[in-house]
């Protein structure tokens, strides 16, 4: 008999970022008991770091006139390179305006329309009309036909998270912070909650719930250089994967953000380019118009990132001791604009690079940023494979983003999905009984206890967690980056398999007792390497280029063979995931030309996509 604390609730939400909290609020509104587990206090969640904004087709600002959910839907599908689920994209685009307005009602100080004539940085004259004054305004973001990204200066994530959390507090929803879920409790058919480890005391807890929601965000920290917070280690995804029955969708779809600051990888928001910032090369030449005459710096993120690397490969990068980079220039926006609308950027530049962006150029390079893949769910957010398990936000493959997410669609997804999935969770929970056999709970806790004891005693071996982790990060950076090819991906898979075997023989150097941070890392590492393998192996097998997945040896999108989603399973004892595939759901917009990017020009000469003209209305 193990010693652990047990908590029983209706709904267990793992993760307290925007997606988790919005789901919890929706479920609690149905009168259900909800417990949220979080690694950190909710307001420290990575959602807080989002600077740029949240897309919703309000059509209030001059450059947004005429916008509507249809156009938002089209932009999202094109952005995804036709990899998304169109039912989900439609539901999302229709709901986003309500979500933005509800956040305004709850207290978000969205920037508002100021009437009058303005001159854009490129010289265009626009006029915001009096009749829209005071309504929520929007800024320009990559891959969108209209200005649609609602924002609060460049602290959008901060204001959304603080407002959301204020509603959680107001509703009295229970939050257990510094509590890390380390395994799901399940019997292969139903999910009954999770085993968690307290990051204050090291004590184990069992949470039993009628439904469990994974809302743990992305896995940026698998990569050595990422814009993600250090807590973004993909934990919810590997917990689901470890059940053996829940697949992860499209793990090979990894987004790189064009402007991570060199060398630290801290994000410089797309708002900087949206507001008129340029990219320059070592000759201070603005090169993006050469590649993308129409969308320039505001083509979608996958395209801008690849163009930057292409340009660097041609020898136009600025040499530095951290490797070549490019420049982001926002000086022409003026000190006033930079220190009000882009103030967080100014602070980041000052604090982490010692530069003043009103006077200096910002060194940038594409940096790992977002995971389109995650726990595969249906449109209700219900995970494949286990009843009572849901996933939401970046941790999920819902699948709104397909192979590339548009800027401003991630914040929008967290909240829209939280609303939609929260309702479905509530409906499911109201009809579900909590009939978890306590023996099963005991077994699951015991298993985790054994893992911990093995690590502390060094019984399995003495591999060093930090060394293996570093090698995993380097392997992904080097071989599973922006441009990919068969031989490199094979190298990555081989190396990661070796690391995986070694990760089963970790031994701690410290005591491992109480809130020990080395133990926490050691418990995560094998799961993280499994995710890394899903990414690399999925990428190796997908012999086409789509969205963020760019194969040098297969440069074209191949709809005939690859209009399908990868599902990665990890059976017990496996050393590689098993890949299965399912078709992508196309409802309204048949595959066609995105209107930007490499495939745009190439498609004209490609016979298999020539018939897709009707999709080309960009």
């Amino acid at each position: 008999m193990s010693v652990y604390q047990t908590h029983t609730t209706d709904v267990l939400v793992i993760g307290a970022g925007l997606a988790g909290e919005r789901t919890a609020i929706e479920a609690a509104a149905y009168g259900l008991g909800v417990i949220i587990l979080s690694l950190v206090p909710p307001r420290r969640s990575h959602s807080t770091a989002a600077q740029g904004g949240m897309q919703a087709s309000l059509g209030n600002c001059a450059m947004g006139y005429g916008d509507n959910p249809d156009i938002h839907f089209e932009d999202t599908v094109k952005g995804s390179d036709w990899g998304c689920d169109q039912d989900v994209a439609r539901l999302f685009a229709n709901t986003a305006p309500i979500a933005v307005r509800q956040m305004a009602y709850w207290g978000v100080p969205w920037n508002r329309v100021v009437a009058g004539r303005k001159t854009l940085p490129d010289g265009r004259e626009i006029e915001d009309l009096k009749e829209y004054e005071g309504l929520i305004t929007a800024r320009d973001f990559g891959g969108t036909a209209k200005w649609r990204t609602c924002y609060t200066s460049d602290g959008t994530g901060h204001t959304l998270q603080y407002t959301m959390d204020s509603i959680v507090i107001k509703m009295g929803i229970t939050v257990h912070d510094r509590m890390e879920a380390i395994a799901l409790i399940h019997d292969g058919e139903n999910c009954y909650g999770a085993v968690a480890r307290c990051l204050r005391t090291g004590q184990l807890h069992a949470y039993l719930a009628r439904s469990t929601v994974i809302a743990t965000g992305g896995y940026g920290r698998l990569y050595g250089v990422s814009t993600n917070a250090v807590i973004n280690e993909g934990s919810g995804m590997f917990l689901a994967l470890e059940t053996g029955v829940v697949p992860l969708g499209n793990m090979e779809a990894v987004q790189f953000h064009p402007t991570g600051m060199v060398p630290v990888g801290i994000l410089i928001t797309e708002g900087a380019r949206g507001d008129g910032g340029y990219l320059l090369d070592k000759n201070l030449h603005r090169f993006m118009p050469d590649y993308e005459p129409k969308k320039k710096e505001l083509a979608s993120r996958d395209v801008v990132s690849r163009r930057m690397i292409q340009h660097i490969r041609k020898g136009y990068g600025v040499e530095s001791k951290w490797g070549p980079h490019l420049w982001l220039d926002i000086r022409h926006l003026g000190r006033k604009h930079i220190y009000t609308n882009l103030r967080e950027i100014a602070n980041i530049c000052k604090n982490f690079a010692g530069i003043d962006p009103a006077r200096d150029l910002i060194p940038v390079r594409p940096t790992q940023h977002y995971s389109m893949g995650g726990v595969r769910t249906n449109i209700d957010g219900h995970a494949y494979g286990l009843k009572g398990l849901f996933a939401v936000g970046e941790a999920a493959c819902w699948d709104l983003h397909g192979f590339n997410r548009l800027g401003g669609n991630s914040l929008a997804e967290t909240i829209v999905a939280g609303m939609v999935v929260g309702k479905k969770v509530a409906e499911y929970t109201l009809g579900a009984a909590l009939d978890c056999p306590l023996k099963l709970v005991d077994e699951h806790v015991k298993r985790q206890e054994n893992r911990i004891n093995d690590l502390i005693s060094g019984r399995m071996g003495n591999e060093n967690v930090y060394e293996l982790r570093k090698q995993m990060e380097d392997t992904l950076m080097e071989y599973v980056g922006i441009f990919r090819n068969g031989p490199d991906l094979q190298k990555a898979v081989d190396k990661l398999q070796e690391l995986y075997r070694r990760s089963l023989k970790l031994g701690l150097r410290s005591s491992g007792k109480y809130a020990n941070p080395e133990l926490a890392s050691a418990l995560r590492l094998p799961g993280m390497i499994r995710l890394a393998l899903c990414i690399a192996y999925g990428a190796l097998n997908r012999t086409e280029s789509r969205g963020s997945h760019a194969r040098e040896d297969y440069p074209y999108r191949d709809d005939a063979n690859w209009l399908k989603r990868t599902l990665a399973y990890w059976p017990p004892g496996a050393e590689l995931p098993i890949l299965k595939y399912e078709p992508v759901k196309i409802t309204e917009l048949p595959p066609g030309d995105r209107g930007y990017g490499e495939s745009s020009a190439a498609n004209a000469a490609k016979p298999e996509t020539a018939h897709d003209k009707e999709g080309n209305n960009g």
Partner: protein
Amino acid sequence: MAERLLTFSIFRYNPNTPEIKPYMQEYRLGEMPGMTLFVALNKIREEQDPSLMFDFVCRAAICGSCAMLVNGKPRLACKTLTKDLPPRITLFPLPVFKLIGDLSVDTGTWFRHMSLKTEAWIHTTREFDPQAREERMDNETALKIYEAERCIECGCCIAGCATANIREDFIGAAGINRVARFMVDPRDERSPQEYFEVVGTEEGTFGCVGLMACEDNCPMGLPLQMQLAYVRRKMAAAGLAARPQTRAG
């Protein structure tokens, strides 16, 4: 440039093992260009002492997790460059907050309690109508709310506050700033009188003794003293307005 050898003297204590008294432990580390305390502490943990406890999340001065006393001053460790410090660096956890271990403190519980105490959410009688267009607000007002909303709850102002260090119920500059954020928001329908109930006390706006360390220590550069003056003025007015009523009642 000759590489400096830095000496870190770090406070060690685990409340789970009270039999081991608090002590200072020294670590040595070669300085690297652009090194922040985030980089340094992670290097120490990964290469020298994997048991060392400290908190980072965003490592970009956005989330407020990593505040600690750096050579006696409350600062965000993530944006503190070692080149701005002498070769001997002393690190302590923030005071006032409950210690979790070594440099890690429980700011989450403190701030949630403060939010509950100040009822830091929009109080409104209006219902949300999903079909309706949003309420209008002028942009200047929106920007003003955002100015007061920029606090990241790192706790630097609380740690450096004389009052917070001697009375545990004081909501501090962060709490008063939070109240100011809702006072300037036209969506919040609370009257000055209702606010008075929340902060018109020694635990709230009248507890401050005016040493101004909060504003000096704020890594976000928030005008905390101005916010205090704003709230205090409103509370003084609300207090005066309440007096005749009290007498009549």
